[in-house]
């Protein structure tokens, strides 16, 4: 009841408010990290029937033999690589924080790929030395990680970061220092535009979502939908933009658009509004943590229509996070576990044996990315960043666990996506 220090209290409240909820040092709010990164992952198993044509740029001129990891159909004749020594390869994953569900499997897959490569002698006498950093799912963690890897550790290639949001902040550092960055889960726009040293293995939302929308519209036949997206993250916003334009192209009416933020726990206000409008489907552009919250609360409120999402849905953790509410969730993906891509079966088996769990799309993309890098190193016959960059840019029609993969002229990913649905807690091809 002492009013005299009300003023200072209020001032301090605002200071605390400014520090805590946003990306404070100690508290990375569950960032929607996987945003870009996780998305495009090579989806399109080679067997996917309706897959749109793979990149037109897939020139027949086979650029380089596929990475000679055991999981890939080992056909490439080993070039005489006169490489020796240790090749430092950096990786930035979100191992803690809101995107940890994605980062954990990426780390697993990359470590497995590097071990396979080192054992198989693909690079001659040279060995890859993998240095992994955790960006805590925030860009404030990604930038120092990138600086350390490219400066102190002198890596020649960096894999990651997991989230588009972090990539947009950290990749310019690598570009400045002329170190190759290979994005394996960024799916927002503006990634490869950051510079000619930035490559992307994950299909952007702009390549996956239109397929998702047309496939689901044909199957479900919806004409009126409601849309929810996170307006504070590069990935979820990019996903929303693509969903919006795809829906409009397919003459679907958007009844209402609601927003939320990373770390939000309560979506009842937005969902109540949506329920009152009576949409035939709910489109959600969110990361797994928020997506799970939305699904649970939507079902709680009695919203029964199908929920369709972007790359954020593609972690099998989604089914664990949302429990029974995740049943029937549909998303466009870059990879499918039983896809017929070369080496995919061997990759899945090896991952299962080593980690006692199934790999997911993000693991497959990280695995493919690592192998593509090794292919480039072998083709270049050199271990400096510039040579690797040039060799990577030339890769076309590579056999990867994602299917036939090529880099476009802008160093972006080209391969075919799929649509999948959660059934009994697991992903199945959406038919």
């Amino acid at each position, binding site marked *: *009841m*002492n*009013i*005299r*220090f*009300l003023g*200072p*209290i*209020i001032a*301090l*409240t605002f200071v*605390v*408010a400014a520090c*805590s*909820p946003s990306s*404070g040092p*100690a*508290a*990375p*709010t*569950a960032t929607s990290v996987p945003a870009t990164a996780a998305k495009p992952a090579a989806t399109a198993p080679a067997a996917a029937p309706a897959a749109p044509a793979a990149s037109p740029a897939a020139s027949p001129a086979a650029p380089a033999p596929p990475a000679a990891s055991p999981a890939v159909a080992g056909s490439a004749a080993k070039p005489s690589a006169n490489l020796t020594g240790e090749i430092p390869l950096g990786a930035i994953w979100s191992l*803690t*924080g*809101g995107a*940890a*569900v994605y980062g954990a499997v990426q780390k697993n897959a990359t470590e497995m790929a590097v071990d396979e490569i080192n054992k198989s002698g693909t690079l001659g006498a040279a060995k890859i030395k993998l240095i992994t950093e955790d960006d*805590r799912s925030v860009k404030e963690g990604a930038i120092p990680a990138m600086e350390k890897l490219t400066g102190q550790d002198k890596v020649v290639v960096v894999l990651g970061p997991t989230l588009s949001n972090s990539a947009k902040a950290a990749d310019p550092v690598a570009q400045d220092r002329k170190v190759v960055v290979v994005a394996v889960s960024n799916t927002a726009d503006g990634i490869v535009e950051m510079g000619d040293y930035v490559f992307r293995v994950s299909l952007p939302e702009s390549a996956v979502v239109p397929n998702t929308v047309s496939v689901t519209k044909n199957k479900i036949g919806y004409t009126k939908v409601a849309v929810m997206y996170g*307006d504070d993250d590069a990935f979820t916003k990019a996903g929303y933009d693509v969903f919006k334009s795809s829906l409009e192209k397919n003459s679907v009416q958007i009844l209402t658009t*609601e*927003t*939320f*933020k990373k*770390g*939000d*726990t*309560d979506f*009842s*206000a*937005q969902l*109540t*509004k949506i*329920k*009152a409008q009576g949409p035939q489907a709910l489109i959600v552009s969110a990361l797994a*943590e928020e997506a799970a*919250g939305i699904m*649970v609360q939507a*079902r*709680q*409120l*009695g919203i029964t229509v199908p929920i369709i999402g972007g790359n954020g849905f593609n972690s099998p953790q989604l089914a*664990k*996070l*949302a*429990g*029974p509410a995740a049943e029937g969730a549909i998303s466009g993906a870059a990879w499918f576990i039983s896809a017929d891509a070369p080496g995919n079966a061997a990759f899945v088996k090896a991952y299962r044996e080593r980690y006692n769990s199934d790999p997911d799309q993000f693991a497959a993309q990280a695995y493919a990315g690592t192998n593509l890098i090794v292919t480039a190193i072998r083709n270049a016959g050199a271990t400096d960043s510039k040579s690797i960059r040039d060799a990577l840019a030339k890769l076309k029609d590579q056999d990867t666990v994602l299917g036939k993969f090529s880099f476009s002229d802008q160093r972006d990913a080209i391969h075919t996506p799929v649509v999948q649905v959660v059934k009994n807690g697991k992903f199945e091809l959406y038919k």
Partner: protein
Amino acid sequence: MEQLPQQLMNGIWQGAALALFAMGYTLVFGSLDIVNLAHGATYMWGAFIGFVAVTRLGLPLWVAIPPAMLGAGVIAILLDRLAFKPLRSLTVGGLVLWGGFLVFLLGVVGHWDNTIKTGIAVVGALVMALGLLLDYRAASPLRQRAVPPLAPMIASIGASIVMISVAQGVFGAQVSRFPPRLFPTAPFSLPGDTVIAPIQVLVLALSLLLIVALRQLITKSRAGRAIRAIAWSERTARLLGINVDLVIAQTFLLAGALAGAAGVLLGLAFNRLEPVMGNEVELAGLTVIIVGGMGSIGGAALAAFLVGMIRVLSVAYFDSSFRDAFVFGLLILMLLARPSGLLGRGRVVRA
């Protein structure tokens, strides 16, 4: 407008949980003039203790809530003895307590074998217990002085950071979730085309129950009367023979227990536990106690429902980005129009 009943329902149960949280805030502020900004961290720890009880000890939900409340209450007492009490009266016991606490922290977050870590933590805990005892039974403090009003608040900010960091070290910074089928999920249908989920009913019911219980405790019981006496005037209470130190500990125990209950309930309702979960509710709670009138329990309850409603309706009828803006707007409005809050008493000049 047709969704108004459902939006109101959304706001009511969230307001109830917020009221539960704000009770502890206002209790400590009303009786001790301390703005405890670590209250949110206490709430978070209560949620995690409940989480551990359910997931690692396999206790059913009903059995898990009391330990969470007790654990959070004990943490609040430790918070007082470590962060607030040394400011007003520093004793040898207090110093011993601090030493023990540092050793305990080392044991929890150090990088050694598990057995060594546990050993160090146990030693630290024992020293802390000794320190608590000495501190409580201290005949004469080393230093005693009037506390500048802001000092405990700043200390609580530091305490909050420590509590969050320890939680991150123990539980990891990512989101933890209760197992999915802990509670029936089929929502109840109510008139007005509204639905409410069983967990939300639990939150509402338990919050109201605890608030009523608190009110009974404060008004009818001896301990409650002692708390109110200290709120009125600490010196007079001391002269009347009230064991001020003990009552302060009881106040913190109560406040912490309420925060812990709120933590478990909201943690269950949203099923999203992370070490920083206290931050958002803390700011809302601060607004609640200022709008409601500092030190007034009824005012805090009223303001909590108001703030809960505003949070839901602002998202329903405007954009989700404006939720905090509306809450703080209410705060500023209240400070301009009626600084003592809705039900707060004006400043009383005592002879």
